[in-house]
C-alpha cells in the first residue's frame, strides 16, 4: 500500500495570504487527486493530475505534479475564509490493476481568518 505524507497537518492564516500544501510518497503515483472536505460534509474532488510535471489551475488554486510523479503540491493564492476546510491528497499505485482503491494522506486542516 502506498503511503502518502501530507504537510503541514495544520495551517492557520489570515485572509489574503498565500499557502502551499505538500503531498509526498516514496513510490510513483499513477495519478494523484486532491479533495476538499468541509465540516459535516464528505470530501469533494478538486482535481486529478496524471502526467509528471503537470500543472492545473482552478481559480486561485494551483496544483502541481512532480516530474517523477512522487510528489504534488497545492498552492492557494490570496486565501479566503471560504477556503477553510480539510485538504486531502489521494493516490492509486502505479502499475497493476487498480480497483478504484484510493489511499489518502493524513490531511491538512486549513483555517483562514477574516
Amino acid at each position, binding site marked *: 500500500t502506498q503511503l502518502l505524507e501530507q504537510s503541514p497537518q495544520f495551517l492557520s492564516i489570515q485572509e489574503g495570504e498565500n499557502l502551499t500544501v505538500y503531498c509526498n510518497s516514496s513510490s510513483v503515483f499513477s495519478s494523484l487527486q486532491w479533495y476538499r472536505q468541509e465540516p459535516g460534509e464528505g470530501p469533494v474532488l478538486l482535481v486529478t493530475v496524471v502526467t509528471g510535471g503537470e500543472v492545473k489551475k482552478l481559480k486561485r488554486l494551483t496544483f502541481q505534479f512532480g516530474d517523477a510523479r512522487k510528489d504534488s503540491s497545492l498552492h492557494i493564492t490570496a486565501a479566503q475564509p471560504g477556503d477553510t476546510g480539510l485538504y486531502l491528497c489521494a493516490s492509486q499505485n502505479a502499475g497493476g490493476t487498480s480497483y478504484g482503491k484510493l489511499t489518502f494522506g493524513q*490531511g491538512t486542516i486549513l483555517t483562514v481568518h477574516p
Partner: protein
Amino acid sequence: DTAVSQTPKYLVTQMGNDKSIKCEQNLGHDTMYWYKQDSKKFLKIMFSYNNKELIINETVPNRFSPKSPDKAHLNLHINSLELGDSAVYFCASSQDILAQETQYFGPGTRLLVL
C-alpha cells in the same frame, strides 16, 4: 437531488449493539465504497463493490458486513459494536473501478459508541 445519500446522519449507540448504515446513489454508477474517517481525520477505505460484487475488503474485522442488494445501494452492518468503532463512515460511488475515476462521497454517518 442528492447524488450519494446516507442514513442515518448521526448514530449513538451502546457497546455490544448491532447497527446498520444505509447508502444510496442515484448517479447510475457501477462501483460503491465504504470509508472510515477517524478522529484525526484520516480516511481509509474499508470495502468496495462493483456491480454488487465485493472487490476490495481491507483488513476490516468481520463484525463489519457490507451488503449490496443492487448497484444503487450499499449497506454496512456492524455487529457487537466496540468503542473503537466510533468514527465517521462515508459511502462513495464512481462510474466504474478504473483508476482516475472521480469518487463522489456521501455526507457521512457519525457513529458514536458509548
